[in-house]
């Protein structure tokens, strides 16, 4: 008779402290209170909220219209004054750059201002590609918590490649840290979003190898969505 294998845990325990776990269990087992609210009351509240929203929209719309009308009146007055000045024989020599600024402002007769860049760059030229992994190279710490938090910020800012680079560091340099497990799943999802399917596949495979019982069905589904691919050497496709 073969000895029974210990069942792999589903995933990392939510709470490590047994005493706190017992308290959390008490909270989970609290009996649900009898509900007095019913569908009628919710519907009445929903209608009242809709009416209040409509009133707010009407007020805001009125204010916007009033502001627009005011702007039109002021602009019209300015145009009228400027034309009056031209007619009286004054030449508008008012094309002066704005002081001490990255951009100069050319003010044309009639009050229309157009910003231009001093160094002939387009005003719309943006900073270098902010999604470059190099943008995180000033990260001064190797602490996995700091790396995960920084990765979260970068991801929220849309810098997915940089976030993936930091999560890769957590997975490679801190494989035994409790955070490495979640970081590996986040990394796999990020790589998939970035279209780096081969690397995403490797990340999911590495997760499956490191944590065979944990969230297995979710990981298998993700792998099935990615389809077959080359073998992996840890996080790198061969």
């Amino acid at each position, binding site marked *: 008779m073969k000895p029974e294998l210990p069942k792999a845990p589903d995933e*990392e325990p939510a709470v490590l*402290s047994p005493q706190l776990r017992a308290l959390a269990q008490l909270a989970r087992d609290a009996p649900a*209170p009898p509900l007095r609210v019913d569908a009628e009351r919710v519907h009445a509240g929903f209608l009242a*909220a809709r009416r209040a*929203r409509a009133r707010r929209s009407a007020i805001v719309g009125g204010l916007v219209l009033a502001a627009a009308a005011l702007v039109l009146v002021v602009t019209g007055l300015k145009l009228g004054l400027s034309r009056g000045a031209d007619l009286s024989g004054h030449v508008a020599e008012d094309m002066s750059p704005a002081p001490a600024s990255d951009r100069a402002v050319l003010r044309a007769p009639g009050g229309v201002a157009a910003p231009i860049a001093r160094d002939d760059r387009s005003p719309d030229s943006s900073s270098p590609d902010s999604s470059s992994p190099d943008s995180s190279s000033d990260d001064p710490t190797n602490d996995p918590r700091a790396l995960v938090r920084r990765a979260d910020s970068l991801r929220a800012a849309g810098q997915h490649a940089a976030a993936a680079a930091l999560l890769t560091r957590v997975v490679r340099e801190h494989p035994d840290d409790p955070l490495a497990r*979640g970081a590996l799943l986040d990394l796999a999802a990020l790589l998939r979003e970035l279209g780096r399917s081969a690397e995403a596949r490797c990340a999911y495979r590495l997760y499956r190898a490191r944590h065979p019982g944990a969230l297995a069905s979710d990981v298998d589904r993700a792998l099935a969505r990615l389809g077959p691919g080359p073998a992996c050497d840890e996080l790198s496709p061969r």
Partner: protein
Amino acid sequence: MVSDGDDDEANVLRAAQRGDRAAQSQLFTRYRERVARQILRMVGDPSAVDDLVQEVFIAAFTALPRFRGDAQLGTWLYAIATNRTRNWWDSQRRRRRREDVAAGRPSEPQDDPEADLAARQQRDHLYAALANLPDKLREAFIARAIEGMNLIDASAALGAPISTVSYRTRRAEQLLCAALGLPWRES
């Protein structure tokens, strides 16, 4: 394969999105217990549940036309309930400051059928400690430890990466153990 149940849910959902009152009632009936239980686990105060359930469904029906089905309806409702209870925690904190209540104990339920006074007191201690946590740590702890969600579900419900949920849960545990005088070690 889509089952009849899924079809039915989708039909009800579409009708509710068009503002159909009967469909909204059906959704309310289907999800109210689940939302009520979730809210109780989040705030620990049975007397607050009724009002919060109503707020959640009013907010949900208001936003329903914009629901695109990217997440499951239950997950979407969970996120709305999380936002609503965040406001509740804020108002509780303000109220406690006004009343200068030292420990931040949740208000006593008016009609608690539970006989086990000790269990209720222990829960109250836990929620008093939870009240002093930052919102995000508290929400991660509740989703993982009290709701019992796995990391992937908690990540979807809270709209945060898995590693962040993991980190926040661990940090919340550390702070709760300190507040409750429980021993804590990281691994």
